[in-house]
């Protein structure tokens, strides 16, 4: 026993200095390495793997002369390492060449879309988390009530639905067959952004909120029930602490930690979920950009968007981990 404490002692004190900073550092370093590998995978897959990307772009209309011109334009006549280096440095300097479909600079095409998608993800995440946490907490407090049963069945049904089915249902109800309250497509005038016409955001946000709420709600309910049945809540009850105080001060903070991880995971989901939803509503974000770029074999655009989405993914993973540790005192000091 003495040996154990002796070995554990220094480790704890060393970590106690900056445990969170150390964690962030480790995670960030690991994230950068992962991103580097991801960029390599994306690059090799799109540029090199299929024999010749230029041939894929030109398709059946390829002539030897046009192939050579495009190969030169895409730098395919250089060595793989040189191509990768050129592309990687382009990611940081913003010089990624031109779109093969429209001829415009890639970064210019993507940056406006990135802002729109960012607004979509942020608004969805904010609304979805609030609604999910509230519904989950309510279901836990009224466990086995009618409300609890109905929400849990609805949640189970909704979690299985593809985004496009939810979106189509909303379009049928709100913008075509049943009523015409909202626009079915989110067409934006060039140079304007999504928040300038909020009504265009309603249906895309509603679709994504419906997708993410059940997950957050279910985790919040489970964590809240666990907290309400815990010894410290029992203790507080015995001490005569008012019920509202037990819920708000004792149960909720402890239930929110695992829920935050699920919220983080749902932000991760949004990175993929926006692709289909933006396409359906014609919302000018990077998801819709990716679909049309894949349709046009516009490789520079595909590369950039996929790397952005992967970077967001890796970044959110780190943020989720760190917040989860910060939100759980037990884990902050454990071991």
């Amino acid at each position, binding site marked *: 026993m003495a040996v154990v404490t002796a070995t554990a002692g220094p480790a704890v004190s060393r970590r106690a200095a900056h445990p969170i900073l150390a964690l962030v550092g480790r995670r960030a370093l690991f994230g950068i390495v992962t991103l580097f590998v991801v960029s390599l995978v994306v690059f090799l897959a799109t540029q090199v793997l299929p024999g010749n990307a230029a041939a894929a772009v030109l398709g059946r209309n390829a002539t030897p002369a046009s192939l050579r011109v495009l190969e030169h334009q895409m730098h395919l006549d250089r060595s793989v390492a040189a191509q990768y280096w050129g592309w990687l440095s382009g990611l940081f300097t913003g010089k990624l060449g031109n779109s093969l479909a429209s001829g415009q600079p890639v970064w210019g095409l993507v940056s406006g879309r990135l802002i729109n998608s960012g607004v979509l993800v942020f608004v969805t995440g904010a609304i979805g988390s609030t609604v999910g946490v509230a519904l989950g907490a309510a279901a836990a407090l009224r466990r086995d009530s009618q409300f609890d049963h109905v929400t849990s069945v609805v949640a189970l049904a909704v979690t*299985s639905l*593809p985004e496009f089915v939810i979106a*189509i249902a909303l379009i049928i109800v709100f913008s075509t067959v049943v009523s015409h309250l909202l626009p079915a497509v989110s067409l934006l005038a060039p140079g304007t952004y999504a928040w300038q016409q909020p009504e265009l955001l309603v249906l895309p946000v509603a679709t994504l909120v419906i997708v993410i709420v059940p997950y957050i709600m279910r985790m919040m309910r489970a964590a809240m029930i666990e907290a309400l049945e815990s010894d410290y809540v029992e203790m507080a009850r015995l001490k005569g602490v008012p019920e509202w105080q037990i819920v708000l001060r004792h149960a909720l903070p402890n239930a929110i930690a695992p829920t935050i991880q699920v919220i983080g995971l749902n932000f991760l989901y949004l990175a993929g979920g926006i692709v289909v939803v933006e396409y359906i509503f014609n919302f000018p974000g990077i998801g819709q950009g990716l679909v049309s770029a894949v*349709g046009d074999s516009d490789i520079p655009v*595909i590369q950039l968007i996929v790397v952005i*989405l992967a970077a967001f993914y890796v970044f959110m993973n780190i943020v989720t981990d760190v917040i989860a540790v910060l939100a759980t005192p037990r884990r902050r000091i454990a071991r």
Partner: protein
Amino acid sequence: MAVVTPGRFPAEQVPGPARAAGRRGHLPEWLSSLWAAVRTTRGGIGLALVSLIVGLAVIGPWITPSPPNALLTLDYARPGGHFLLGSDALGRDVLSRVLAGGWLLLLMAAAATVLGVMLGAAAGVSAAYLRGVSDGIIMRTIDVILSFPQLVFALLLLSVIGPKLWLIVLAVAVSHAPQVGRVLRSATLDISEQDYVKAVELQGTRPAKVMMKEIMPNLVSPLMVEVGLRLTYSIVIIAGLAFLGFGQQPPASNWGSMINENRIGLALNPWAVIVPAALIALLTIGMNTFTDAVARVAIGVERRPEEAALLDELVPREIA
């Protein structure tokens, strides 16, 4: 319950004490838990929905009232007369296209699921059992694949090689593998500590044989749940890709692409969209409900493994 090592998998999820390899009861464990799941309300409803839709998709191509790809009438004709569900964007019979448009989607989803779960199980079990360098390589590969949203991963591959059906199946399978791998890795970590595994190891059995004969039989329950979950997601992703225009070539009908082809005419003939969308919805709801019932019976938790794992698994290893 045997002694369970404090792992990241909740104790209830570790399958019971050593079911010695080769020893067989009257009913295999997986069949009896499937049967128990079917007898619950959820499981019964789920299975009934799935059987209904799968049955429709399988016999559908044989009972189409008209040729599914023939241009027969006006665009977006309302239901009536010969055409019970009206016509689509090109004047084709919606009912026939619905009946013909499900089987390939289901076949692709099933293939992607089987392949993905096999890949993931192989990766997860080897990582946990072999440890060391193999574990590191497998887990880092998983991290890289997990850096892409599943649909984006599939789109990336499709953008390179073109919308080939085998590639869609392969892309979806590969994007499933990491998730399956993670769940099975943590289950294996617990099982490989059990005495009966140690006993076989001491007899000098090769690792491959230990994994196949001793560890895999004990992973049947989490594997069943994973198959159900991944099947649901496979349907969602493959139908989604078809919706985005990456699936069968145009004249062929597919529930996913039908929704996209006909949504411009929603106001004229909504059935051309509602019916395929409802079929996909009922199928995924049924699949998910049935999986939920299996998870409750076979693993005995209120939550799904993916959610249960979240509570413990996603906490950074170095702090948890």
